[in-house]
């Protein structure tokens, strides 16, 4: 289940978050982001949440105005990836409380911190909502205390 990258972008194709689990040159990344946004945004409703792209599988899901999109290897389980995206949304929701796109726009670094507790090296690191919330908040709190 090696995830190659995770992208969050808006319905207008604006990138909101990008996480690259495998090293890629900057140009390649930009091209991928462009490909992903055009491909995913041009999907018709009622189609499945999976796409073939090169030798990878793209799994995407739309939550309100935001698209969550990740790339997997062919033998990986697409349905499971959908649930990973969903769990990430749940985590964001737990942290921000009724999360919306604006939360992620204005606090994108927090969204990264949460992601870093959830996935590591493209693999699931921790699935418990409680534990992740705890460790993210611990870092936040520690910062508060120091100042």
């Amino acid at each position: 289940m090696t995830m190659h990258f995770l992208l969050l972008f808006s319905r207008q194709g604006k990138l909101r978050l990008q996480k690259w689990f495998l090293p890629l040159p900057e140009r390649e990344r930009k091209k991928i982001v462009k490909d992903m946004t055009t491909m995913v945004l041009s999907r018709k409703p009622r189609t499945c949440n999976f796409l073939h792209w090169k030798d990878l599988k793209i799994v995407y899901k739309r939550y309100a105005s935001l698209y969550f999109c990740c790339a997997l290897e062919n033998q990986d389980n697409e349905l499971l990836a959908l649930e990973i995206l969903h769990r990430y949304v749940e985590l964001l929701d737990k942290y921000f409380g009724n999360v919306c796109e604006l939360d992620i726009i204005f606090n994108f670094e927090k969204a990264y911190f949460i992601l870093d507790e959830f996935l590591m090296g493209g693999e699931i690191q921790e699935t418990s909502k409680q534990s992740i919330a705890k460790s993210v908040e611990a870092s936040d709190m520690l910062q508060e205390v120091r100042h």
Partner: protein
Amino acid sequence: MSDVVEKTLTALPGLFESQTGAAKITNRLRQLIKSITELTSKHEEENLIKRELSAIKEQVSSPNTTMKQMREIMVRAMYCEMLGYDASFTYIHAIKLAQQGGVLEKRVGYLAVSLFLNEGHELLLLLVNTVLKDLQSTNLIEVCMALTVVAQVFPKDMIPAVLPLVEDKLSHPKEIIRRKAVLALYKFYLIAPNQVQHIHAKFCKALSDKDPGVMASSLHIYLQLIRESPDSYKDLTGSFVTILKQVLGGKLPVDFNYHSVPAPWLQIQLLRILSLLGKEDQSTSELMYEVLDESLRRAEMNHNITYAILYECVKAVYTIHPKAELLEKAARCIGNFVLSPKINLKYLGLKALTYVVQHDAKLALQHQMTIIECLDHSDFTIKRETLELLFRITNAQNVTVIVEKMLDFLCYVPIKTLTFAPDNSWFIQTMNDVFSIGGDLLQQDVPNNFLRLLAEGKPEEDDQLRLYAVESYLTVLKGHTSHLPQCFLQVMSWVLGEYAHLQESVDRREVIRLLTQLLDQRSVSSETRVWILSALTKIPEGQTDLILDLAESLSSSQDTVLRQQAQELRHLSQDSQLREWVLVENSCAVDSSLSFLDGFVSEALAAGAAPYKPPHQRQEELSLNLEPYSFSLPVSLSSCSITDRQSPTLLSVSSGLSGNSAELSTLILEGVKRVWGKDGYLPQKEATAPPVDEPSAAVQPASQQEAAERIEPRPEPSTQNQDKQQLASSLFVGLGVGSSVSLLGKSEAPPPRFRKKPRPHESSSSSGTSKRSSDSSSHSSRNTTDSFLYGSFPEEEPATSISTFDHTPKSTTANGLSQNKDTKEDRHANTSQILGGDMVIVRPSTIQDKHPPSVSSDLTALLPADLKDLPHSDVISLTSDPSLSLSSCRLFRDEALLLVIFISNCTETVIKDVAVQLTCEELKVCTGNVMDCLEARSTSVCHYALLMDDPHTNVSLTGTVSYQTQPGHTNTLPFSGTLSTADFIRPLVVTTEEYGKLWLSLSHDVKQNLKLLTDAGDPLRTTLNALKDALQLHVVDIIGSEGIVACRLLSGAPCLLHCRVNGAALAMWLRSPHPALPDFILYHCQRALAHH
């Protein structure tokens, strides 16, 4: 928006440290984000970011900038980078921030580093010391951050520096540190497996860690290790099985649950590991059968995550050493996936099938119709997955069809996806590949569409594309051209002719030379030569000498077309004025209103010509005109076939009459080629049926001529579904178990004789059901599957209709089917519309009629005019749901049984894509009917002509109707019914002499005493009349106490009945060429008399 901003800003506690300085800072970020979201054009954004970046630059280089400010600046820089702008000058400051800042700054610094710096970025070297320091920190959070960044960005050559410290963290007291360390090591293993080889023992410790999270993380490494060398880890199988058992048993803390499923990620990881361990290893596999079984059982179908687990489970079951019981369960699971209306599950089902067919190709057979549907799915992902599946089942018999499908797809995709083709060169290159690989197998519309795409583009925008095309083709033509397919050559010559002038640098002489060179090639077809010459004609003037040479050499060509073109070429190249006039640079304007014909039209009108009418208007008039004629048609029309299109099929059946008709088993379908062969498309159960039940291929030699006729393409377009079945038959050929069984097996084996006991309970129970359902057809739930049993209640037989039945003498050998004419004049010309030939939509006479036609007698009025006069059974409701109701009625035609299905739309909206799928195992039939839409409150009628060659007491029909109330949302409604042999029996009109001759020639006979009806004066006559009414027999003669009766099965096998009054009973002696037919007729006689 501003209050949302306020709200989210208050959720940013880290940014509010001091009221004075920080408020200003946060304002900057807020201002930046806010102004960017308000911008409308890319240009404005560019300017804004440019200003922002220069401001940032100034700030970072200022010695007065504090770490706090720097952190905020870094967030802004990250934002700019995310928008796609280069902020590389801040990278070094990100490292500094991670180095020098407090925890708060460090966190942002590390994040910026992991976002900005790729593995291998030279600045990363500056980070090593910081990471080493943080790994040794007493602050947990610093250690965590260091481990995260190490796993994210550290390249191969930097791993040794941190490895010992990361390794130490495996025994850290905090589980979160151990977990992150394990994952970091996993990442190291992926990048540089050699460097972590020495710590395998420590991985084992992680696997037995008391914290399940650490254990779960270690599985990532184990999966990788086992994938590489499964044999080294066989001894761990027991542990993995135990862990999975514990997980399934809910032994893990609730924290690990995901939507009340225990640790799904862990489960899946374990299933994958187990499947790798059990692969091709029976003894290891045996260890895991139990837990896999439990896993299959535990996963309830309620959530995506359980489907995800099931999918892995199925894969595991098929990967390890097979166990029949598990395979069966897994196959059922796949069925659940494939048949799911949820498209994601369908996709996964296809993927599972793709995996599974490598082990068991038969499974694809079970789902062939779904596969065919998926092949035409509007979703490309589904389509592609289906092709993947087809690829796996390719064999010698279906290879051509599958490759054709793949090429279709291949060619369709590039054109379709052009909208998001990354760039022009990619598109042209892809199309080049398509043309050179697909070549002349491509359908003509592929090159046509491609050329149109090039031609219709706007001059400025698409000149780029054209230019690429020209360049790329010139390169292609300079190479070896002899192997290129004709259509590719044609495309190239057209493009070069049209657009070569766009490329300034191209030497026209070179283009002409390349094209001329093609003409000299032997492999180039004359059609392509014409394309090439046309291209040469279009290349601008100035190269007269080359053209003249060419024209000269061609003027002696044997091909007159080429010679003519060469002449034209010569003239055009010599007369530049003519040339300019003929070849306009830019394509001329098309006068779509044909105004230049106005003069001609007015002249014609003045001369008395009829004014032009659009086609639809003409059709209406035509059908109106037809009305009187159709009334005056002879009565025999009713017996004339509306099924003329099936005549080839019928012919093949009638040939069976003279031959061994006993071996033939056919259900005749409108417009369907008889493609159901042993190797062809068979309903699911056929695949596992014994060879005796396989439709005989041995009879085909006997009717080779007919077979040839069958294969002949019909001019009429057959309905979509029939196409699909044909496709299925050609795709799934050679997959069944029967493929290894001798084709001759069938003809020698006698058809099974069976005498079924009457089943009285059926008539009582089901007649109640069907009556109730017909009353409440519009209310019954979607899931209702009202079974109905044709012929199991003879009291419903339309006795009156039978007496008026047109007893046209029809000998068995000359049943005149080939003379059938198309008599499909529709008397409802104004209200009806013919769909696909055998479906008629009838709109209600009044729009206000809000009630669905639930009264069965109303429905018979909807029968097409030429069927109205046929004797028919009562209309029986088949199934219904709130939107659609299905009823059926049997029409007794002379040469076939017509099963009419009425599909009524009970809603006020149009129902789309109504597809009726009908299957009958005994008749070895599976057919479908599709119509695009069914208007509100209207009823559509479709009918099937059925024949029974191998008699059965009752044959059951099953079917489904699927439809769409909303686009993309398909409902499916199953139905079933039964037909009896009695439906397929027709009177055989013979004279007493013929009867006598025939009697002697028949071999199979059955004798039985039957009940004699004694309630009337003449018991024999009464009994025979009763039988005649019930079974459509022909009473040939009655002499004293003996009576002779004749009938035939629709397909032809006659059956003669000799009846004699024997005391209080009727001794009946039946003879037939068909071994089983007498039994069935006897059975129905018994029933008829019992019910009398």
